[in-house]
């Protein structure tokens, strides 16, 4: 189990977070750039010193600012960190990179494990190659293999697959998910794309300005944001007043809008189409409705000027102070 309750100072603000990750659990830190996600990972890895707090991993205290004061250096933490740059040692072959954490000459058990790991990762044919010869995806597989062979007690991933193409990103993420489950170690992924965190995580922590705003399941943080800021971060682009409830607004997520009137399924709006463009296989349509501009991704195009009835499916609603209200069972909500 990984427990972290820390306060880390940064130039502009301090990052305060308290989280617990169970063995084999995958937590994602989601938030905009500069929210303090990487700082948090670095504090856990021992690369940044918290001003206050405690970090414990698998029964060992890694950091404690209380008494007795403890600050294990990175090389004693057994925490693996994978960044966007795979960080392979350019002077060592793939094989030597993989076995880097093994100091003595590789014995039979090591070689057995090496064969197993390279098999799973599909890099068995690359052992003699130098890192400079590898493609981006191959380099990341090797870096992952190196972490696995180092027997880390926790695995941290800092936007590792940014810059790789979507298919490869998906494959690598699936690989990580299965390996973490197999190794039963706590793991944390940092990402600023929601879909990526959802593909990885059991739970998502939404971080903004150094604060954790919400921790929940991948569907919870999207469908039940606790505060308006979380709703904005997970993709709610418009907020419209709810008729009959003064000062309460409903969040509109472009993917959670359907055309037609279904009052039992959500908030019905009537508006005028102001524009549209293709977005993937859907049409992204902007609509002026209830005094606000909202965006909806619908299966069919709609010409500008068209009067349209829409249902915003089961929207989260927020009071003026940004807190969620009356969440759940739309038909008649908020209460």
């Amino acid at each position, binding site marked *: 189990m990984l427990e972290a309750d820390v306060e880390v100072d940064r130039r502009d603000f301090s990052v305060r977070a308290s989280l617990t990750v169970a063995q084999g659990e995958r937590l994602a830190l989601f938030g905009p750039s500069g929210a303090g996600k990487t700082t948090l990972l670095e504090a856990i890895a021992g690369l940044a010193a918290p001003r206050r707090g405690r970090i414990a991993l698998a029964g060992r205290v890694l950091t404690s600012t209380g008494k007795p004061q403890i600050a294990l250096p990175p090389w004693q933490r057994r925490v693996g960190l994978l960044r966007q740059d795979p960080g392979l040692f350019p*002077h060592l072959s793939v094989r030597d990179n993989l076995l880097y954490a093994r100091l003595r000459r590789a014995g039979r058990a090591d070689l057995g494990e090496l064969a197993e790991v390279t098999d799973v990762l599909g890099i068995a044919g690359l052992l003699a190659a130098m890192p400079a010869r590898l493609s981006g995806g191959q380099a990341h597989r090797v870096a992952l293999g190196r972490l696995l062979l*180092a027997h880390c007690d926790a695995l941290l991933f800092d936007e590792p697959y940014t810059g790789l193409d979507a298919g490869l990103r998906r494959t690598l993420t699936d690989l990580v998910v299965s390996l973490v489950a197999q190794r039963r170690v706590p793991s944390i992924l940092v990402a600023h794309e929601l879909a990526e965190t959802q593909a990885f995580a059991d739970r998502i922590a939404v971080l903004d300005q150094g604060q954790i705003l919400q921790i929940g399941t991948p569907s919870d943080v999207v469908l039940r944001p606790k505060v308006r800021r979380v709703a904005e971060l997970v993709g709610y682009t418009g907020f419209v007043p709810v008729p009959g409830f003064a000062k309460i607004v409903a969040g509109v997520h472009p993917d959670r809008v359907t055309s037609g009137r279904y009052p039992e399924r959500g908030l019905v709006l009537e508006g005028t189409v102001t524009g549209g463009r293709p977005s993937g296989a859907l049409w992204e349509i902007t609509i002026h409705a209830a005094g606000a501009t909202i965006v909806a991704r619908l299966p069919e195009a709609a010409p500008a000027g068209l009067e349209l009835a829409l249902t915003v499916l089961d929207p989260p609603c927020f009071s003026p102070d940004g807190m969620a209200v009356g969440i759940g069972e739309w038909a008649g909500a908020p209460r």
Partner: protein
Amino acid sequence: MAASQVTVTSPAPGRGGPGGAAVPRGLRYANRSLALTGTGIIWIALLGPVIALVTHLSWHAITSSLSAPGAFDPLILSVESGAVTLGVLLLLGTPLAWALARGALPFPRVWEAGVLASMLLPPLVIGLLLVFMVGPYTPIGHVLADLHLSATDTFLALVIAQVYESAPYYVLGAQAAFSSVDPRLEEQAALLGDPPRRAFRRVSVPLAAPGLAVALTIAWARAMGAFGAVVIIAYHPTALPLQIWTTLQETGLPSALPFALVLLVVALPLPIAAYIWSARARGRRRG
């Protein structure tokens, strides 16, 4: 469609790069031949002394100069003191170079200026100042005397003079070599369980090795040829450059030339070998 109207201008053969097509062909050739001529002139000018040495040496002069009794003693002395100098540089210069490269020292500019000073001071001046620093009537001289050592006209003095003349070349070269190592790789080594010293040995040094080797052998060449400081504080025992100087003074230019050849033969192969080795090491890394 607009996309099909884009015309493709093919660059002239042998010339790529942006803007290449805008310069008229004739001007381009004139430009290129001018650059080639300039490069050639500088290259020949720099190599000129070596060419002069080879063309002015006669086999007879070589055999008669080098067959004299004790003719090779200065060579042996220079190689010995040069080896000690390299040891001192490796031991003391490497940590300084690493600290400079990683910005681990307070006021890094001051430290760099200190290293540069010994490179910018004329060697002759360094020699004069060393007399005031380690001469027999100075505090350091007294300490050395208590240890039955002396830093005037001794092997120790020779090593000190050589260190002063070669250290900046090694330290600055090694600093550049360490700077080229990505700190993230050292960080990764730490996360994989290496304490700083082990990470230094397993990652920083191997990655900086090509640059370190070149820096060290340049320092070797400087130490071998050290003269200005040596002539002041270590006139005796006679090292190779001083042998050239005294031979020139006593018997003239022709008999000094063979020793110049010896100096080149001893001082140059190591840098050249290091250069080739480091180029190969870089090539291996590219896979």
